[in-house]
């Protein structure tokens, strides 16, 4: 007997303990994805004899004699399966890593199952979309039908959309990779056929069981004796160079406090040694065979304890000036102390003062694709690393610096990336495979497990915010004082940036003469925090927007009215911790007022709908309330964010755009194609975007800080505009027409009466020795500001704590929306991810420093059943700094959600929840103990 895969009997036999997922991948079925490897996420869904199963928990030996169908075998080879068509039509994906599993699951549904997607799709987790587009895909809706408020309004409110030329600015162009995504042929990091990597080795890590210890010795003998083990790397083998896993344009933005392999471990889960072997199983066995002697050091787990005198200095061995650590002996990585005006005067002038401690928890990105990379040496002996990264060019720089290599001898590429959310703005795997490949001269691969993601990747920085704010009776903010401690964990990656950024736009959006900030980022012996969607803003905005709500309540004013009175307007300086505004941040456009109005009107309509439908009384156990919050974000990170792109005319008359930025579901590939198409008078479908390869273009800082559209897009637009001119020039010389009479149209240039096809122009240019290719650059400055306002109507069951979201609405000021459907998807995804962070998600660290929530059943991310359909509205603005008027819109939709929900719960229950997450049990217990109400 044999296992039949997509109609063909497999020649291979599975290993005894192998799961079907890895067996299928070994046979080349890369559409079978690993999201969790524990049966929770459904990314590996296949059919066994027609029945859908999660192949990661299906014993492969059980498939003997059965017929397995993977995504690769779903269609008949000629046309797509209807569900694949529907996912394409509705664009029911972003990063696409979950898509094959979604499609395989939905392909088995009957009408009854389709009518109950919360139940039937709860075993398929998506971190990007917020599930709305998936619902539309599974049900065969295109996402733009008439009864759908969000789609309607997004189209109607975007002036570009009204006049959109197909395939250009403002059109709902589908993602270029759509076909590959729905057929499971899109290549993610590890989807490389074995024959392309002969001799591939696998790396597994021995991780520290201790929160703080010095490694006395590591005995490799037994590990090296394990059959298949090729090498063991310890701190004695790795480079001594200190670096930061955080990746920024300037490495000096982060403290150099990390080694590839250190002789001191500072959190449970830190790398101790890397074992490289012929198979994953042998590498695992090798890690178990290592004998490590530790000298235990005193740990400290909370930032509040870590800053006390006498606390163990976690990086006390570092030179603060060299490593850029503010006070290494006191565990302070970075700090800011600033006062604008006088908060004492401001409080004296206040009629109402709100004082509260707000706390945000550790949350994890849970990108569906875990961290993974492969390194090898190419024919020229260059180091090549294929990684799941948002920042290939910065990884290249970091590897060159770590291993003392000339930058041109390092190449970093990313395939399609299965989600990022900031988590892949780090070097967490690439340094290890580079070390091993450089040493062993063989390809080496590492893949994190889902548990490794939780215990040893990065999290959002937990913030403790002691807030005091005052308001005058006539509705003005008189003082805002914040004492902030952020917990950066064992390493300072992103600690300064997150702290500073957190204390930036969150304060600057309010006019207030008296602002005071004392903030510290503090080391603890816990899993490191890093970059996370919002980059500090979500934490601070939770506190400040909650406080704004309390102030309004305190003075008896409608909270939105209070916001309208105090929020910045064009011309107002945007001030947070410095007396002068950032010199390169401007009101390139301003739509905050529109966003507030859009949310207020939508909430009013929602309330009326409930009333009209007779649903406003849910019964005696239910209380209802509504709440809102706003947020502002600079459209580009500070201190330079660079992009080089190249646009060229190809021999077949199509265009190629080479960009550095990676595609991880952010949709920038589509945006590049649309921007270029607009400049080149063609359609996005005629643009081929090549991306995320350090050999393609000179440099690209990377896809973080929401820079994909506004920085790289700006570079692409510039290059495309110049190329359009050059093409017209060649056409003019070819036809003898005046340049002013030559007009680029789709596929050709009209020169007076003559129409010259682009292919002809390409050939003519080649004969002239002219290459029709142009370079675009953008340095990320000047910058503008983007806005998001969120509103909720909720019902709370006072008997059980159950929370129901009755209405969710977000208005966004994204400037001119390049692709309304895609932008809506970014917003919906941000809302869903934020709902998880408000309602359940928490990476728990116990009293001994262990992460206890290390699988997806312990760390619940929103499933289909958890996420309401949100209404999404766009402000009508046109930005003077962004490409064709566009602004950033990828991190920011996350930011106002938590306080909006907390404010709605406050409105419903009278209780201020200042600590996240706000789970049903906590709501119930707080209702039992009304003393939690502040003031």
């Amino acid at each position, binding site marked *: 007997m044999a296992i039949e895969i997509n109609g063909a009997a497999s020649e291979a036999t599975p290993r005894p303990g192998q799961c079907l997922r890895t067996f299928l991948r070994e046979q080349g079925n890369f559409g079978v994805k690993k999201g969790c490897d524990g*049966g929770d996420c459904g990314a590996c869904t296949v059919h066994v004899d027609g029945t*859908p199963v999660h192949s990661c928990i299906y014993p492969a030996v059980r498939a003997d004699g059965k017929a397995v169908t993977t995504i690769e075998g779903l269609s008949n080879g000629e046309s797509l399966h209807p569900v694949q068509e529907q996912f394409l039509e509705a664009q029911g994906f972003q990063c696409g890593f979950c898509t094959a599993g979604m499609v395989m699951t939905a392909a088995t549904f009957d009408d009854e199952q389709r009518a109950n997607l919360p139940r039937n799709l709860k075993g398929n987790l998506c971190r990007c979309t917020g599930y709305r587009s998936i*619902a539309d895909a599974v049900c065969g809706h295109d996402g733009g039908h008439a009864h759908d*408020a969000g789609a309607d309004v997004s189209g109607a409110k975007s002036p570009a959309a009204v006049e959109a030329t197909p395939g250009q600015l403002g059109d709902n162009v589908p993602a270029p990779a759509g076909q590959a995504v729905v057929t499971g042929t899109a290549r993610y990091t590890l989807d490389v056929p074995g024959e392309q990597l002969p001799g591939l080795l696998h790396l597994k890590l021995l991780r520290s069981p201790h929160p703080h210890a010095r490694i006395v010795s590591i005995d490799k003998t037994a590990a090296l004796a394990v059959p298949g083990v090729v090498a063991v790397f310890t701190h004695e083998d790795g480079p001594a160079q200190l670096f930061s896993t955080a990746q920024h344009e300037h490495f000096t933005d982060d403290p150099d406090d990390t080694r590839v392999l250190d002789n001191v471990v500072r959190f449970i889960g830190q790398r101790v040694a890397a074992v490289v072997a012929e198979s994953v199983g042998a590498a695992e066995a090798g890690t178990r065979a290592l004998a490590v002697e530790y000298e235990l050091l005193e740990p400290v787990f909370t930032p509040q304890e870590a800053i006390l005198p006498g606390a163990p200095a976690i990086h006390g061995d570092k030179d603060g000036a060299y490593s850029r650590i503010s006070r290494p002996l006191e565990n302070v990585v970075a700090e800011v102390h600033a006062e604008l005006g006088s908060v004492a005067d401001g409080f004296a002038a206040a009629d109402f003062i709100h004082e509260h401690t707000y706390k945000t928890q550790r949350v994890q990105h849970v990108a569906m694709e875990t961290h993974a990379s492969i390194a090898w040496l190419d024919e020229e002996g260059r180091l090549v690393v294929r990684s799941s990264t948002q920042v290939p060019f910065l990884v290249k720089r970091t590897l060159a610096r770590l291993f003392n290599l000339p930058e041109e001898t390092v190449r970093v590429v990313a395939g399609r990336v299965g989600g990022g959310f900031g988590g892949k703005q780090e070097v967490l795997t690439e340094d290890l495979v580079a070390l091993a490949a450089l040493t062993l001269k063989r390809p080496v691969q590492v893949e994190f*497990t889902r548990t490794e993601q939780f215990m040893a990747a990065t999290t959002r920085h937990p913030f403790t915010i002691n807030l005091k704010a005052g308001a005058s009776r006539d509705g003005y903010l008189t003082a805002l004082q914040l004492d902030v401690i952020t917990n950066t964990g064992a390493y300072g990656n992103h600690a300064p940036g997150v702290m500073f950024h957190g204390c930036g736009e969150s304060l600057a959006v309010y006019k207030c003469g008296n602002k005071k900030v004392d903030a510290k980022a503090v080391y603890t012996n816990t899993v490191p925090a890093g970059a996370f969607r919002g980059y500090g803003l979500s934490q601070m905005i939770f506190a400040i927007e909650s406080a704004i709500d309390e102030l309004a309540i305190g003075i008896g004013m409608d909270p939105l009215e209070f916001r309208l009175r105090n929020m910045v307007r064009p011309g107002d300086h945007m001030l947070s911790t410095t007396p002068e505004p950032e010199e390169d941040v401007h009101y390139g456009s301003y739509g905050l007022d529109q966003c507030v109005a859009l949310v207020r009107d939508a909430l009013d309509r929602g309330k009326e709908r409930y009333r009209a439908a007779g649903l406003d009384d849910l019964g005696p156990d239910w209380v209802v309330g509504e709440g809102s919050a706003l947020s502002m974000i600079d459209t580009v990170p500070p201190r330079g964010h660079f992009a080089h792109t190249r646009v060229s005319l190809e021999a077949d008359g199509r265009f190629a755009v080479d960009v550095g930025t990676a595609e991880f579901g952010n949709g920038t590939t589509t945006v590049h194609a649309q921007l270029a198409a607009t400049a080149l008078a063609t359609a996005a479908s005629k643009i081929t975007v090549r991306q995320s390869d350090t050999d393609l273009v000179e440099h690209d800082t990377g896809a973080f800080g929401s820079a994909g559209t506004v920085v790289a897009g700006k570079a692409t637009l510039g290059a495309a505009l110049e190329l359009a001119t050059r093409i017209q020039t060649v056409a003019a010389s070819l036809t003898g027409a005046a340049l002013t009479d030559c007009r680029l149209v789709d596929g050709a240039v009209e020169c007076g009466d003559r129409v010259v096809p682009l292919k002809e122009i390409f050939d003519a240019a080649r004969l002239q020795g002219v290459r029709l290719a142009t370079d675009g650059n953008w340095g990320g400055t000047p910058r503008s500001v983007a806005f998001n306002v969120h509103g909720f109507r909720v019902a709370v069951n006072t008997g059980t704590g159950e929370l129901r979201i009755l209405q969710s609405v977000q208005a966004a000021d994204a400037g001119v929306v390049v692709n309304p459907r895609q932008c809506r998807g970014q917003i919906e995804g941000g809302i869903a991810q934020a709902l998880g962070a408000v309602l*359940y998600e928490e990476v728990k660290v116990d009293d001994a420093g262990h992460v206890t929530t290390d699988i997806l059943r*312990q760390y619940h991310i929103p499933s289909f059943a958890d996420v309401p359909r949100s209404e999404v509205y766009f402000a009508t603005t046109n930005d003077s700094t962004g490409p064709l008027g566009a602004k950033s819109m990828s991190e920011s939709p996350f930011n106002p959600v938590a306080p909006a929900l907390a404010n709605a719960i406050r409105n419903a229950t009278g209780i201020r929840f200042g600590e996240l997450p706000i789970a049903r049990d906590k709501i119930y217990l707080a209702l039992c103990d009304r003393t939690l109400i502040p003031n």
Partner: protein
Amino acid sequence: MDMNTIEAVVPTTDPSQWRDGDAWLAGGTVLFSYGSTVLKRLLDLGQAGWPAITVTDQGIELAATCTVAELYALPASAEIANHEWPALALIRPCCDSFVASFKIWNMSTVGGNLCTSLPAGPMISLSAGLDAMASIQSPDGSSRSLPVSDFVTGDMQNVLASGELLRSIHLPAEALSARVAFRRLSLSNLGRSGVLLIGRLDAEGGLVITVTASTKRPVQLRFPAGQVPDAGMLADAVGDSIPWPLYHDDIHGLPAWRRDMTFKLAEEIRAELLGESMVVSGDFWPPHATSPQPSTQRANNNPQKEAPHGN
């Protein structure tokens, strides 16, 4: 995930074959989900050939290898049609209480859920709630049986000794003939159970309330006919039967919430079964022909749950 330390998969149902480093493989959904670095062999029940479900006048015998999908299909099956067993209404709500998707049900087994012995194991709730008996076979050739409510002894703990095999679960006809009620709460929609209570009013008038999920192991409150409690007596009984340390404490619910919800749901069940009032907190009850779910993502909004969005 791959279990790379496994050297052999041995098809057998014979406990005498068991040796150190072995594990019984039923559906595999738990073993392959958590993985292992110590197991050497899997004793594969996949070819046991045990009939999944055997219906007699004495009740229902579920093989340990009966899949959740097979159990879910039972209430609609022909073999059950001529039995007047109201308690069958519990089967689907209990299956729906799995946080795992219906796809997992195609592999995971009733016995596997019992042997995993999580507080939230819904097959434990179902079988304990129906006074089911578990039949166990031992490596020495002996066998024994005991109530499921005694089978699970704590969070991921049970009475099985090394090598012992759970063979089957018997749901007695007397319990199946009872009127039943079900209540469940979770911190998320359709999520892991934080509290799950099942009530049974037997034909003779006795009331049994079985508490699971909120407690580390099942707890049963039994009130014989004639001693059926009022609200106050029930609350006293809950308080007396469940000491504070028995409430489970994990990410799926704080113990204080679980305790209060246990009191609340027990009273809702009591009042429902005694016909005093019908208040339903939580999901899946009363049972529907198709599983009712809170639907917030459906393109065609359900007006029962929310007003349609739109202008």
